[in-house]
């Protein structure tokens, strides 16, 4: 049952991750895209695309016998890749929010600057982050079974 749910969940999630990876590739080709909610621009957009593309492939290749350790490991690896990309983005936002910025004092930029840092548009990995955390449940279960 757990395996079936995992297969379906990470199958769908894998397709979404893969699609975001391809979207970042396309965005690289057209010189970047920034919408109301989604940001597919920046110097490293192609690298983010590559990482998400392969993460999506890893998820999809893990759906058969999902709870088998070798298959599960691929999903864990894909999730770690998403965590790295999202982690860097979150850290960048935190790092920008500590010093006062060009117009501000020593610490914490003015409210407008601060809002601009934290409100959308976000890169795809930030939207994918909460959904990828589902893997922690399977890691925990695997650990418990081992015990």
């Amino acid at each position: 049952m757990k395996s079936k749910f995992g297969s379906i969940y990470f199958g769908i999630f894998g397709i979404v991750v893969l699609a975001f990876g391809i979207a970042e590739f396309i965005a690289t080709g057209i010189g970047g895209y920034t919408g109301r909610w989604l940001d597919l621009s920046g110097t490293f957009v192609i690298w983010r695309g590559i990482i998400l593309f392969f993460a999506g492939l890893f998820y999809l290749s893990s759906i058969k016998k999902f709870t088998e350790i070798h298959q599960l490991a691929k999903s864990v690896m894909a999730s770690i890749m998403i965590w790295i990309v999202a982690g860097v983005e979150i850290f960048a936002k935190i790092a920008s929010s500590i010093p006062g910025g060009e117009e501000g004092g020593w610490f914490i930029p003015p409210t407008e600057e601060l809002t601009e840092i934290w409100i959308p548009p976000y890169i795809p990995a930030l939207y994918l982050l909460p959904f990828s955390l589902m893997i922690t449940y399977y890691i925990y279960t695997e650990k418990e079974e081992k015990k």
Partner: protein
Amino acid sequence: MLNVDERWNLIDKIAKKTVKFGGYKATLKDVLGELTVKPWTGIPFAIAVIYGFWGFFCEFAGTLFTDGFMCKIFDEHWLPWLQSVFPGGLGNWFYALMVDAGHMENGVLVASDNCFEAFGVLTSGLFVPFGVVLWAVLAFYLIFALLEDVGYLPRLAVLVDTLLHKIGLHGYAIVPTFLGLGCNIPGVSATRVLETKKQRFLMLTLLGVFVPCGAQIGIMQELIPDMIGWVFLSLAIGYLGFGYVLSKIVPGKSPEILIDVPPYQMPTWRNIRRKVWLRTSRFLLVAVPFVIIGCFIVGIMYLTGAMDGLAWALGPFLTRWWGVPSATVAPLIAGFLRKDLAVGMLGGIEMSRYQLFTSVVLLSIYFPCLATFAVMLKEENWKQFLGTIGFLMAMVFIYGGALHLIGILFGGYK
């Protein structure tokens, strides 16, 4: 002395006698360990790790410390304060040497508004090591220690083993290469992990030329953030291309590798802290005096007119063969003392973006800094050392010319 085949046979024999084979259920850590060394899964994962490494490096060193606090401290407080209290004022030789040489604007000497351009011992001499480099090196060694302690670095060595064999090295050459990205000096010392003289010679040469140190990367990130990918690509092509040529012409053996790959584990904060402190403090002890001496020597050369003389003498070569302005002679001289200082000096020279890119690449490859030179001399005998120097000179001559040619062909000077 056993050769490689004999060693493997011996290992087989010992294993047959000592190892008992039975059922073993792999853990998640084991399988992750396997996946990170297999090319199809390992390479995308390595890209993600390097992305994380670079992202943290830029944000921690660049956004948070250098841009966030240090530029403010040095440019808005330290420099104006020194400009107002230091005796002499603009145009005075001692003031120029210690605080601000100024620059000409429409025939008038004007004061600098940032520590990058001031080029005094007390301004650029302190801003470069403490305002920029310290944070870059700290960020680099923090992540490096983390990867080391988690157990990812040996896996990266296994992953790149095949590639590095093509240039006569083996996977463990990734350790001096990575360490060199922090500071070339520990990188040079780490070449001891390579077994043969040939491998060590190859590694030392490639390290001295194509591996920029963390300090230099930090300054590049400040100066040309949008072109840094191209700089790295040029250096990687040089590393692999010239490595391949060297491995064919240098006599000697390139044996196989036996690496002990530890299981993945949680790093301990105490270990990380110790490693980062040890490496960063050692780096500062070496770097700070050289940056200050560098500023002093370059300042003296400007004041005595020696720099103009050199620029005049080397000008035709620099402009015609490398396609960079003759004024880059000053950074090239400073680069012998500290590369980071030299890259910072490029910011004050008027040139096109392609010329700036070429100058940064050339500064990276043209000579290792003096401190690295000293350690290289310790690690190599005189014959090898002279061989390395000869090769460096030939390489920078060819590579600089090739970059100029690419610029002409692809319209880089428009």
